[in-house]
């Protein structure tokens, strides 16, 4: 599997990881982003991710394809949640398999960095005190 997907519902990692396994690959690196109970010093009570789904899937797939070109990896995939998420819920998962650990780690890091900077998904945070906010960080 070499795919990027948006999931509007909670998703399981195990079957995604399974599809990256192979006797040719000796290394697997993964990343998960979870909803934290704080962000930049503010107590977070929950959040909502909105996406421009068609463009997010195109852009996400382009990132996976570019990772497969740039790094000596075997397979890569990423799934990003949208909708309402509770504290501790899984927001994003990236998995990469490779012959060796160096490229597995580097590609995994590169993919999450690119997803965070390029894929049209927006976070709306609700706080313990104060108005909820759409996050539009400076690039």
């Amino acid at each position: 599997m070499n795919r990027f997907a948006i999931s509007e519902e909670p998703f399981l990692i195990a079957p995604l990881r399974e599809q990256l396994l192979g006797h040719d690959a000796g290394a697997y690196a993964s990343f998960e982003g979870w909803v934290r109970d704080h962000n930049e010093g503010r107590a977070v009570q929950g959040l909502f991710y909105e996406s421009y789904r068609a463009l997010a899937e195109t852009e996400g797939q382009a990132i996976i394809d570019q990772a497969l070109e740039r790094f000596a990896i075997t397979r890569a995939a990423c799934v990003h949640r949208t909708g309402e998420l509770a504290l501790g819920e899984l927001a994003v998962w990236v998995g990469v398999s490779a012959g060796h650990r160096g490229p597995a780690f580097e590609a995994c890091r590169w993919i999450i960095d690119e997803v965070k900077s390029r894929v049209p998904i927006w976070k709306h945070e609700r706080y313990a005190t104060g108005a909820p906010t759409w996050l539009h960080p400076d690039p």
Partner: protein
Amino acid sequence: MSVTVLYFASLREAAGVDRELLPLPASLRALYDALSLRHGFSLPATKLRVAVDGAFVPWDSPLSDGCEIAFIPPVSGG
């Protein structure tokens, strides 16, 4: 001669709708400036990217009848 404009995140919240059908504008930049005035968008165009028909395009791309335009505020996934 019209275009559809999609709104996301804070732009959607400010516009109060997630899409609008509007007359074909002279340019993407002219359209965003007009919409900023109308809806009170606080993000300057320089902070945004723009997509037409589901693909990122330069701000000076030509527009055609019936196209779908999305102004993309800074993203915050992950």
